[in-house]
């Protein structure tokens, strides 16, 4: 029962996945998206893959949303930014930490139809709330930036980690949500001539709309609706561009030279999310490169790792508790028993999560002594991701 690597047909798909590393992904793919639940090491994985791609002579950029401070520092990022910065000590690697508000402002500045409109948008209270708040906007901004970076043609490899949203899937949904919204009734209502004239309760806007508007203005006050109408109207002429870029990114992500890397911890909640995401990627026809499980506990080597657990327990019990060394040895045997229990539990959880999904690659990165936040640490992780450490 304690044999975590038990064979059988069920596991064979995973055995094959385990035999492959991300080596060829780093070497050849153009866009690499790291995704997964919060706190599983997405950003660290993205940074490690980017360092490795750059080491192989590919012009690379890593685009990250909200890295831990020390990791950001080691990538040479001291603040949020909208422009790529070279990573000190790593040739051919740029890094960028996305400033949501600035990115949104830049899009407005670039695409609005007149300078007057730019100012109207930037001054609008709804815009200020929307562009500064996290939900929804982040995924969209990451999309726009990915589109930009691809368009520059400056990079062979673009590595990006998805925003820490409540749901990693929001990233994929962003183009569709935007398109639905732009084509939906809600926006049309605000763009209809009756609204523009401030007469939303009249027949000019239709019965349903009028009813909604009357209800909404009772709940929120008419000023809010005017603000909102102005907000949507000032974007007129830009909607088609939003839609086109969102679609372009969606197709870019679907290309066979893109790669989704699903990152997880060995704990059931994040593994559950990872398996859900694998299914979702398959449904969207997205190119899944594989799964990375970070911070995996490694089984002890030697006979203590292979013998039946009962044998270890007996051995520990037989040692003399009055002798310092023997008592300490018994504790070490207990630690081995515990480590093996953790290994068994983690491997079971990994197999349960990916059973039947057969990701193309499954890479486990062992638990390091402490947090990884420098270039050397990232190279250590990269070696595991590309199979360079395999004996």
């Amino acid at each position, binding site marked *: 029962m304690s044999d975590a690597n038990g064979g059988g047909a069920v596991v064979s798909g995973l055995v094959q996945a385990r035999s492959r590393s991300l080596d060829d992904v780093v070497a050849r793919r153009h866009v690499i998206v790291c995704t997964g639940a919060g706190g599983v090491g997405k950003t660290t994985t993205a940074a490690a893959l980017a360092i490795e791609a750059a080491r192989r002579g590919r012009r690379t950029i890593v685009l990250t949303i909200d890295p831990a401070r020390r990791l950001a520092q080691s990538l040479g990022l001291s603040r949020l930014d909208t422009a790529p910065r070279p990573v000190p000590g790593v040739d051919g690697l740029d890094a960028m930490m996305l400033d949501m508000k600035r990115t949104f402002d830049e899009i407005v500045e670039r695409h609005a139809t007149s300078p007057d409109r730019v100012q109207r948008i930037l001054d609008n209270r709804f815009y200020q709330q929307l562009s500064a708040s996290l939900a929804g906007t982040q995924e969209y901004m990451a999309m726009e930036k990915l589109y930009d970076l691809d368009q520059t043609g400056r990079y062979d490899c673009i590595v990006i980690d998805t925003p820490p949203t409540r749901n990693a899937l929001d990233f994929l949904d962003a183009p569709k949500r935007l398109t639905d919204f732009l084509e939906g*009734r809600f926006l049309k209502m605000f763009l209809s001539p009756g609204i523009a004239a401030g007469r939303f309760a009249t027949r000019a806007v239709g019965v349903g709309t009028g009813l909604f508007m009357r209800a909404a203005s009772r709940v929120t006050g008419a000023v809010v609706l005017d603000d909102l109408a102005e907000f949507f109207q000032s974007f007129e002429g830009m909607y088609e561009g939003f839609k086109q870029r969102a679609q372009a990114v969606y197709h870019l992500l679907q290309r066979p030279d893109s790669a989704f890397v699903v990152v997880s911890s060995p704990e059931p909640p994040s593994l559950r999310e990872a398996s859900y995401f694998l299914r979702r990627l398959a449904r969207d026809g997205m190119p899944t490169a594989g799964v990375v499980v970070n911070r995996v506990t490694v089984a002890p080597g*030697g006979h203590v790792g292979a013998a039946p657990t009962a044998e270890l327990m007996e051995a520990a019990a037989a040692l003399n508790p009055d002798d310092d060394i023997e008592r300490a040895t018994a504790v070490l045997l207990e630690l081995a028993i515990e480590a093996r229990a953790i290994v068994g539990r983690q491997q079971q959880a990994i197999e349960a999560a990916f059973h039947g999904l057969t990701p193309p690659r499954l890479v486990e990165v062992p638990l390091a002594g402490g947090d990884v936040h420098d270039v050397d640490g990232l190279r250590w992780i990269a070696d595991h991701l590309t199979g360079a450490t395999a004996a």
Partner: protein
Amino acid sequence: MTTGARHWRPHLAAERKVTHLVDARTLLDPRVLLVTGKGGVGKSTAAAALAIASVRTGRRTCLVEVEGRQTMRALFNTEPWDFDEREVRQDLFGLSIDPEASLAEYLAMFYGARRLSRLVVNSTAVEFATTAAPGIKDVLLIGKVKEMERRRDPDGRFVYDMIVVDAPPTGRILNFLRAPEATTELVRVGPIREQAQSLIDLLLDPNRLRLQLVTLLEEMPVAETAESAQALTELGVQLNPIIANRVLRPQADAATMKVLADGIAADTLQTVLAGSGFDDPASAHALRHLGEQHLRRLGLQDEMRAALHEGVDVPVFELPYLATRSFAENEVSLLADVISAAVS
């Protein structure tokens, strides 16, 4: 309505002289606990353990999930949770708040007109809430929590003694809490504004609601917890003692730990092991490595504990790492034991 209304203002928080709790006995004192933490620290497990401890100490409790992940369903091994409050254990109710259902409920309550609310909810308002004004979702979620907190049974008693909310993670918690304030900035008059203001009142009242930060004694979670604690305090919300989750305990008594720390020579260890049937050098090597790793983790944990105490002016309550846990609810139950013991 504006005079006397409280706002998120740092100076006000300072005026109120936010006092920090010193004792784990106060963990379950407020009526609403918003549990937050960095992703991966076991926030949902801690929320579930707090809810069970609350029930065990005689409180009728509701555990609320807000991000629709169905984490609790897996923890409690039940049917999927939804917008109906269901008793999942004796005196423990479970609810998964869905912003769209909250919107429908709110509009139905406000207008009493089902026709309108259905019309609105089915189409444009939902589009509005989910796309144009993301903050609205959060206002609706907090609004539902407030409704439950105020709800009374026919003889005037509060229906729930305690509401534990598995709130958004620390990366999103500030925007979540600021949503009512953002709404009052956009909406200057009318019922939505009043509703938003009443939510701000709830969030700022330390007797009604507190924030429960959960962390691990690891570098990134500790750094994020310290930052969040400061930002939350500036916002004016009261913090509960911080829960440090999965804290590793030394494997042995101090004397034996010292023997391990001094190190056992490779050949000595191999000789002792030979008597137990593990005479291969690889076994000795693996055991020495495990011992060093254990000591290194304890050392790192001590550093992080010190960093946490230095970075945050809030007491820390530690929950043990359960290495041999096998079932999720088992773990939650064991952690609830620790919390119940501390509060009683």
